[in-house]
């Protein structure tokens, strides 16, 4: 093993360590009593406790945040998928002279600074009487999920072999049947990735939720961030536990998301 090889591998392993260690350390701390966290020297050996998780899961605000997060993310992703997947298919398979403009418009929504959307929306929802409701949060998030699912869905549908669709058409399938029974199942793996990505995006979203909710509709990231802003006598174990809880759903989807990445590049190289 020569020097550059050793050096290169060391850097890679160091980067990999840096990628996972902070979260692992947080998870370890989530099982510590406060006295074991507030030590002059970081402790690796300690008596684990489930108190932190029990406390977090037993708190009403966390339970409410969890429900709100699931409803906001689930609802907006569902609407985004129901409307976005057909739209993506239409763009991929029925190009017209506005297709490029439509795609650019969808992308350009990403240019909007979130704060620039959130401030006026807060005023609008206040005026309409829907401020701090799950409804307003779902509608607002639909802007995110719909744009994301269209953006990622177009290449997924474009990768479906045209011949298969032609064959189905020859067999007497109408255009809607071709979409539902042929294109959708064949592209489903990439599409699941796109939907999972939209879910993670909304689940992790912070700024809009912070501005559009104050109590009733607060999502989990807001609840967690409020815990992190507690006063002097910080309950570190509880904080670590709530951060772990918040991070679990996206981490569970990591396999699907890396599959999406692999698909996107594998086909390009062929």
């Amino acid at each position: 093993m020569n020097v550059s090889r050793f050096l290169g591998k060391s850097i890679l392993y160091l980067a990999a360590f840096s990628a996972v260690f902070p979260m692992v350390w947080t998870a370890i701390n989530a099982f510590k009593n406060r006295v074991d966290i507030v030590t002059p020297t970081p402790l690796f050996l300690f008596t684990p406790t489930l108190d932190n998780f029990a406390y977090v899961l037993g708190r009403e605000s966390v339970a409410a945040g969890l429900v709100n997060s699931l409803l906001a993310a689930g609802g907006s992703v569902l609407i985004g998928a129901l409307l976005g997947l057909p739209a993506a298919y239409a763009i991929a398979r029925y190009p017209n002279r506005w297709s490029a403009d439509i795609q650019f418009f969808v992308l350009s929504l990403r240019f909007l600074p979130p704060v620039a959307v959130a401030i006026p929306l807060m005023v609008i929802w206040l005026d309409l009487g829907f401020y701090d409701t799950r409804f307003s949060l779902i509608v607002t998030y639909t802007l995110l999920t719909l744009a994301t699912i269209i953006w990622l869905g177009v290449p997924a549908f474009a990768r479906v072999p045209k011949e298969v669709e032609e064959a189905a058409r020859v067999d007497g399938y109408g255009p809607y049947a071709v979409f539902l029974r042929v294109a959708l199942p064949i592209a489903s793996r990439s599409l699941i990735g796109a939907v999972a990505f939209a879910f993670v995006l909304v689940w992790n979203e912070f700024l809009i939720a912070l501005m559009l909710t104050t109590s009733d509709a607060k999502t989990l990231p807001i609840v967690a961030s409020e815990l992190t802003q507690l006063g002097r006598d910080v309950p570190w174990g509880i904080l670590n536990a709530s951060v772990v809880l918040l991070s679990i759903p996206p981490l569970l989807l990591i396999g699907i998301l890396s599959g999406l990445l692999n698909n996107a590049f594998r086909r390009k190289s062929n």
Partner: protein
Amino acid sequence: MKPRTSLPAVFLAPPLVILAVLAFVPTAYAIYISFRNRELSRPDGSFVGLANYIDLFSDRRFINAVGVSLTWEVITVTLTLLVAIVLGILLFEFASMRQRAVLTLVFLVPVILPRVSAAFVWKFAFHPLYGIITYPYKMITGQPLDVLSSPATALMTVALVDVWQWGLFFAVIVLKLLETLPPQPFEAARLDHARRWEIYAYVALPMLKAPLISLTFIKMIESLRAFDLIYVMTRGGPGIATETLDMYAFSQGFIESGRISYASSMAVLMMLATTVIFTVIWKRVKP
């Protein structure tokens, strides 16, 4: 030939109408309230013309926020791309196929984490008394190290978290891009006795110029979303050392005075600047 069908209209019209409404109504409303003097405590307000915009230019905190935002963009975009290219090449050069598969998953972890989580995890790691990163410094010097409370290091420390999230993720993409390249140019360069770094610097990276520019573009857009990290880690502090534009707009509109109109005028300027700049770049990059 495809038969004439209603499918494109049926499939495209509803989502596009919804997107247009959800995007244009807030935009138009932001412009509308930025010409008024509405506050959270006083819902009506009256028309004040360009007063909010004129005030902005004599607001030293606003000028500071513009500077912080620009610094943030430059630091995070540059470092992310640098980290991504170096690690991507190392992955391509030294990792076996199986190692690549494992490292790909590992490198995706930071970017998938909610930013609130990432921000807290690092904030705690940098804690002057109990942090695991500051521990060695404290042990050697006997002094606590408080990087997030020092104006000189706070922004850099938050930027580190952003680069940690995006640099590792982009490294995976650089690896995938390198894997799509044909092997012949590499072999030709090797036959010409090119050194290893020369192959990458003069052969591989120039071949990836277009996708790398796209990556830079994506990161420029994503770097605008610095708010979550800064909110959790420093809240714009110490003082206003890490107060970006979105942080300042947020604190003007909500925390301090509820000056919604003033915050809106900032939001409108941000919207204008980013839309114009990114549209120009996008049209240039994509022929």
